[in-house]
């Protein structure tokens, strides 16, 4: 799936993979790829500005954590982030229901009721 298709949904994807717990940048990318079965092609570099923006607007918080000799910046959802994720899910379900009812109508087209 092209990256353009993800545009507009990136925030929701990032919030969703962070829902179970804190992750660092590379783990976030891996989680998106695994959850989508490899269907979503994200340029790894595109997520950092998005993570930075989500942190700036208070949906995520981050901190440096040491893992052996390495230091990684880990991101986690804030309460506002959880609320936003819930509303993203609701909006997405309403959207897919609406599109689905047009693409796959229960009543075949052309049948008068």
């Amino acid at each position: 799936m092209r990256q353009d298709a993800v545009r507009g949904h990136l925030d929701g994807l990032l919030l969703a993979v962070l829902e179970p717990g804190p992750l660092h940048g590379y783990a976030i990318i891996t989680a998106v790829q695994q959850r989508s079965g490899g269907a979503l092609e994200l340029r790894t570099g595109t997520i950092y500005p998005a993570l930075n923006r989500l942190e700036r607007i208070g949906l995520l918080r981050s901190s440096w954590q040491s893992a052996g000799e390495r230091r990684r910046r880990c991101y986690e959802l804030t309460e506002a982030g959880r609320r936003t994720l819930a509303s993203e899910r609701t909006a997405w379900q309403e959207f897919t229901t609406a599109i689905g009812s047009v693409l796959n109508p229960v009543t075949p087209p052309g049948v008068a009721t």
Partner: protein
Amino acid sequence: MSAVTPQTDPIEDYVSSLAAALHGPARTKARMVAEVREDLTDAVSERTRAGLTYQRAADQAVREFGTADELVVSWQRELTIAQARHTARAVALTVPFVIACWYLVRQAGHDQTWELPRTAQLLAVHLAGVSAAAALLAAVALAATGTLARWLPTPDRLPLTVAWGGTVASVSMAVATLALAIAAALGTDWLLLAFAGALAATSHALVAGSARSCRRCARLPVIEAPGAGER
């Protein structure tokens, strides 16, 4: 005799070119670049564990990350906003200086007899008013690029507006410094006026450098980040 060209580390090359292309607050930029280095190191480790040589693993990781040219524009948007917030905070920090400056000038002006110092004082007060207006703009900018950005799109021209607001505040504080220095030299309450001038000079120094960096960042090309401003 054949010259052996030492192979450079693709990760370090990449990180260096990205760092050279980006402009913004040093701490934010350093943090972003450090994260890239860590991410690429993780990606290379995963590939070398799968059997690739370091060089091939690093080349692959860098390719997947996206070229510096592809990424720099979207990254610069965040850094430009970070710089605008930095400048806005610097302008907001001058408010206590402006209030102190105003108070000192009023105190010194009670028994003023010289015409020139009185003019200089009035000028300083008006310029402090300009700085206060810039501080109000800074507060709005901080709100618009912070929590409010969850619901409202951030105007593209906001960083440039903050940059010029900061510039105006910094120039006004510089002129206020000069005016207060003249007033101090000619007035009777020279100590209070000199102190007010020192406060104005400090305010100018706080804002000027940040506003200059913000003007530079705001002139760089940016694109809207995916998902940004869509609520």
